[in-house]
């Protein structure tokens, strides 16, 4: 039962930013490192901005991902253009990296249905809200790619808590039986809202759950974007080559609350979160850049400024959205509305017009 030793946590770069697996030396190009860094600061800035917008009442409840950027950016960067992404409500760093539009994500949290629409030409499914239910979908989407004979793959995100749901199991089993080209990317941040992983499961790792499906399971340091990127690439490669799914467990941490509606002091000592900053995924790349001579103050400043501008622009766009269109309540339930919906829509629009004329 000591499966955890079969799934040791893998790292490529340690917390101090030193390369510990020399094999990767040549694969880690300057361009790759700078791209890591650019994405990381971009998504972290976005996340903090979004949290502030919620504080100011400019968007609704928001789920922060600070601390998990390494896992999300690294895995998303491993995708190819035509791949599919199934993110959760906490995976905007992944979807942004893969090409999602910032104003759309903000609109999602502003309660706008426009927030669920994928960017043109990119397969990004709206964030899954009912926990773990996206896994069977991701398996099916991958089965369809296989059926069509493409080389596209699917990445499916989910948390440690999600592993307790039946849909986790059914999705994993389907994917393994049908050798579907999908990578199940778990972010183990040790908590499902307030519930620590020790109460969520009896197993010490999530990776070992791969044994149930006889698929490869990999446990990695999710704050080491290097190992995240290369292991996800490998898993995607296996998928594309017809070898079926992989379960990746990226061990990470969320520093903050579960969402802006949550008060983590009820269930954990926030000091621990502060201590975790020692393993921070963004700082680690910074250190790596400094250790290996990629750091350039000017470039970094420039990038930070660009990111800042981009995000401010996104907020402006989000806030400039025309007010919600009442028709959207009715128009996307079916391709053609049923008579019930059509009648309800007509009645409601008449009601609104009546109100409007009353009030003026």
């Amino acid at each position: 039962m000591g499966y955890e030793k079969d799934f040791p946590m893998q790292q490529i770069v340690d917390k101090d930013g030193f390369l510990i697996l020399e094999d990767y030396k040549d694969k880690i190009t300057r361009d790759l490192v700078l791209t890591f860094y650019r994405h990381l600061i971009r998504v972290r800035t976005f996340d903090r901005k979004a949290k502030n917008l919620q504080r100011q009442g400019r968007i609704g409840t928001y789920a922060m991902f600070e601390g998990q950027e390494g896992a999300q950016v690294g895995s998303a960067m491993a995708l190819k253009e035509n791949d599919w992404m199934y993110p959760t409500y906490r995976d905007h760093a992944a979807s942004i990296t893969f090409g999602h539009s910032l104003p759309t994500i903000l609109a999602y949290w502003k309660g706008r249905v426009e927030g669920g629409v994928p960017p043109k030409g990119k397969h990004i499914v709206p964030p899954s809200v009912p926990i773990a239910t996206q896994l069977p979908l991701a398996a099916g989407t991958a089965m369809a790619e296989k059926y069509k004979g493409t080389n596209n793959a699917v990445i499916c995100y989910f948390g440690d808590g999600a592993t307790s749901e039946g849909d986790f199991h059914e999705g994993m089993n389907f994917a393994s039986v049908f050798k579907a080209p999908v990578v199940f990317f778990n972010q183990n941040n040790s908590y499902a809202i307030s519930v620590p992983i020790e109460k969520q499961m009896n197993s010490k790792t999530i990776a070992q759950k791969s044994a149930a499906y006889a698929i490869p399971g990999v446990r990695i340091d999710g704050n080491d974007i290097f190992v995240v990127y290369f292991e996800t690439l490998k898993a995607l490669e296996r998928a594309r080559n017809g070898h079926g799914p992989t379960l990746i467990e990226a061990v990470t941490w969320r520093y903050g609350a579960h969402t802006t509606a949550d008060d983590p002091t009820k269930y954990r000592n926030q000091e621990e979160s502060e201590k975790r900053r020692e393993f921070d995924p963004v700082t680690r790349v910074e250190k790596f850049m400094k250790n290996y001579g990629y750091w350039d103050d000017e470039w970094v400043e420039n990038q930070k400024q660009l990111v800042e501008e981009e995000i401010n622009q996104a907020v402006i766009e989000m806030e400039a959205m025309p007010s919600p269109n009442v028709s959207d309540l009715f128009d996307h339930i079916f391709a053609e509305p049923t008579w019930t919906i059509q009648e309800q829509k007509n009645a409601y629009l008449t009601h609104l017009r009546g109100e409007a004329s009353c009030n003026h």
Partner: protein
Amino acid sequence: MQSLTLIQAITDGMRTMLRERDEVLVLGEDVGKNGGVFRATDGLQEEFGESRVIDTPLSEAGIIGSSVGMAMNGLLPIAEIQFMGFIYPAYEQIMTHATRMRYRTMGAYSVPLVIRAPYGAGVRAPEIHSDSTEALFTHMPGIKVVCPSTPYDAKGLLISAIEDPDPVLFMESLRLYRSVRGEVPEGKYSVEIGKGVKRKEGEDITLIGWGAMMPVLEKAAMEAEKKLISCEIIDLRTLYPIDKDIIAESVQKTGRCVIVHEAHATGGLGNDIISIINDTSFLYMKAPIQRVTGADVHVPFFALEDHYLPTPDRVMEAIEKAIYF
């Protein structure tokens, strides 16, 4: 034209569409090599291969969930749930994914999925094999529900369901599978979803039903004729959206109505129909609408199922109650 049973017509519908479009797949428990526990998919795997007629693991959420993922990705899956009583493990997948994906993406993704499910009591099946829980799906926005009572309609509605750009729950009466037979055209044709059909013209009272209840209504109507009560019979065929016009038109003529279904009274579709009549035909009604339905009890172990199911006698009683109100 071929004369087929209801289940043969269903097989024929699937075969027709599997031939017509490569995107059509059939999947479910035992649908492949075994040809389905009722033989609805008999011969399909032989003809179309294992990649198109797929034996899945025993996993309803997996079947529906993966079908949704396929449907979003350009395929046209036909998922079989072995019995309607075993659809509930997939309820979440239907409720929050199959039916919501179009809305959540404003149409960027849609889910052209057909879920086939044999339903209903009356064949002495073991417990929990006889549910008729259409009302648990008609209350879900984003899915249509159909239920044919003739082989012609079965094939035509199935083809419409497969071509429908949105999810359709296709309910198949276990009891009718082999007990009705009729002419079915070869090749492709369709029956419009959302339209009921008048099975019999009448003057005094409107009988409304669908699926396995149609023969019950017909027998009751014959009894009623003997008592000089002329019944109009409507087969709804589609349970969401219900054909409001055919109901209104008929009850406005007859002023009286009996609704018959297997499902429990409370929350049953009978109440939706009463509500439609309330909205459209209030001033026309000469008597309270009568319902003959399953009680608010579980579909029983089969030794009592005949006492659960509506019978022509009970329908006849309801007719008389409405007539002599």
